[in-house]
């Protein structure tokens, strides 16, 4: 017991600033491993055979729509959910049967869950108190955590005397003061209003960069996931669709779900055709769109094409691009920093966003005829599932 207590006060390098994302884990170097975790609520499968691994110091975002199982999954990792099947390993040790209070995992809850009867300082001290560290001995750790989240002026305040953003930071300080093996953040920004969320996202990134704690972040907000994580795991209906670096997940989605979930896309169903000249096209109604295949698809494959709104170019004159269509402006919405277009094109209604400098001074009128185009490389074509 005594050695445990010492281990907590000792410097675990948790507060060492992180310079770059650590390399992806191998089976030998993994810090956290989630192995074949499945969780049923009655006949509903909330988590379906999920496996992934993180290396020490890595940050992963679990991203998915509500009800995709992401919160259940972190409850399993934290040890709050005792009925899950599968294994959770930390540093190679199976902790699946360990109660939450012996897992050494810091959790930041969506509603912050600060202890209302304790000051900020005592909230942060709580974890160390439970490890039988005296307040005097814990002081450096408390100070460091509070400093990191910049709450020094508020350390004597009670939670109800703090703003939402301050409560959020206090919750982070409380979770990291114990220098946990793993830090879990459940929808950390969802309780803040839109303007504060932008600010806190940057703040959170700064805080996380000051730490070397292996972190899992749960969110339904892709901006949060892409901005904060080294890798993103996109979850759908309890299973992992894809785990990849943010840029890979966005630019190179492996499934139709990921392609549709990340970014703002126009999706159309069509049939793949290989042309004699070696290029590939997808036939959507009367229109053919040239694309650069990313996966093997023979001619005749039923597929779905995703066209990202920001990759569409809208112009009054002809454009030099692989795919060009005539379209009519159904709505032209000017938002200051960008134009948003709703276009009627031969393949259907298209959403387009333009924020190029040359375009921002133009004014567009509803009903106007324009040209809309996109490059072959920007099209994401993914085959429909068999059956």
């Amino acid at each position: 017991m005594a050695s445990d207590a010492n281990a907590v006060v000792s410097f675990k390098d948790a507060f060492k600033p992180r310079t770059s994302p650590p390399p992806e884990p191998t089976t030998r170097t993994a810090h956290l491993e989630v192995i074949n975790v499945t969780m049923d609520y009655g006949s509903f499968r909330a988590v379906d055979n999920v496996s992934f691994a993180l290396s020490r110091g890595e940050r992963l975002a679990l991203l998915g729509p509500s009800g995709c199982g992401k919160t259940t999954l972190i409850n399993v990792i934290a040890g709050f959910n005792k009925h899950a099947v599968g294994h959770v390993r930390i540093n190679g040790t199976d902790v699946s049967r360990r109660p939450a209070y012996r897992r050494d995992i810091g959790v930041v809850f969506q509603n912050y869950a600060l202890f209302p009867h304790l000051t900020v300082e005592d909230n942060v001290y709580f974890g160390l108190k439970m490890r039988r560290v005296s307040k005097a001995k814990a002081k450096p750790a408390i100070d460091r955590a509070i400093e990191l989240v910049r709450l020094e002026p508020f350390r004597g305040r009670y939670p109800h005397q703090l703003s939402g953003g301050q409560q959020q930071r206090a919750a982070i300080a409380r979770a990291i003061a114990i220098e946990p093996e793993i830090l879990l953040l459940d929808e950390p920004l969802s309780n803040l209003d839109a303007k504060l969320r932008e600010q806190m996202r940057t703040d959170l990134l700064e805080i996380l960069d000051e730490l070397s704690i292996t972190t899992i972040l749960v969110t339904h907000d892709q901006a949060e996931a892409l901005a904060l994580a080294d890798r993103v795991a996109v979850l759908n209906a309890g299973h992992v669709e894809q785990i990849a670096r943010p840029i890979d997940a966005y630019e190179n989605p492996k499934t139709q779900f990921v392609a549709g979930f990340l970014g703002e896309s126009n999706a159309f169903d069509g049939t793949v055709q290989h042309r004699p000249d070696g290029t590939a096209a997808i036939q959507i109604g009367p229109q053919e769109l040239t694309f650069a295949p990313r996966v093997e698809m023979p001619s005749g494959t039923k597929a779905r094409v995703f066209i990202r709104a920001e990759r569409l170019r809208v112009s009054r004159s002809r454009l030099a691009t692989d795919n060009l269509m005539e379209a009519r402006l159904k709505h032209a919405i000017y938002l200051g920093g960008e134009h948003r277009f709703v276009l009627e094109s031969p393949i259907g209604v298209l959403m387009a966003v333009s924020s190029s400098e040359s375009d921002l001074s133009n004014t567009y009128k509803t009903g106007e005829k324009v040209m809309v185009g996109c490059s072959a490389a920007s099209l994401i074509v993914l085959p429909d599932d068999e059956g």
Partner: protein
Amino acid sequence: MSMATTAAPRLAFLREITLDRIITAILFVSLAAFFFVVLVIPFGLLLSTAFRQMDLMTYQFQDGYSFHQFLRFFSDAYYLRILFDTVVLALETTFVTLVLAYPLALYMSRAGVRERQILRLLSVSPILISIVVMNFGWVIVMAPQGLVNNTLMGLGLIDEPLPLLYSHVVVVLGLVHVHLPFMILAIDNGLGSIQPEVLKAAESLGASRWKTLRNVIWPLSINGVVSGSIVVFALTASSFVTPMLLGGAWTKTLATVAYQQILFTLDSPFGAAICLILLSVTATFSIGLTRLAIRLQPHRAAPAAPAPRP
């Protein structure tokens, strides 16, 4: 023209009279009238009576007001003993009720929705039965020929009935039985306001179940414990049905003595004085406990968030 302009400001208040305000006024006045009739007037009568003296030959109030009845009470060891016994009885009952109610309320607060509803209904069910019926239940159980004595004698464990009824323990038992629902409801209410995530947070920070109870659940439930204790103490200290039925002639409390003074001795000034003393006992306990609760929970006294500093 000039008439209209001068009349408008004087009649402006008429526009302020809306149906909403009329209804609010009616409701307020009727509630105030109700409390005036059932609370203020009787209390005023009690207060004025307590400072009178009764001529016990003629049953007429004597002239003048004095502290005679209070001096009489506090200079008589017999009455001081009853005051002491009443406070002890109320404290004992409050303590036993608290010890029994807390674990039950704790279990209820962690149970599923359905189980919780059933338990809540069961725990308040004693309120649906008359106190007299509940007390007579204990008479049947504890009487010389009652359930307990007959069973023990039938088993050959005792030769003659134990004097269970009309004992101090049975009075406490009866009072606990009657007042347990109030304590359970108060604590359950306090525990229900704790967010489940707060308990999860404690667990994730290394608190075992016991440590979570000690460091989080208990401090956050103090308000419920305090309000439950105040209600049970006040009801027990002023109860007289249970001490009379289960305590017999030997158990005297302030309430039973006041009852006897007013209805049998017909010394209503002394009875009124005892009532006021009883009232100040429960008031002192309530105020003391409330102050203690505030001291134990500094966060409740802390003002809400001031404007954020730059």
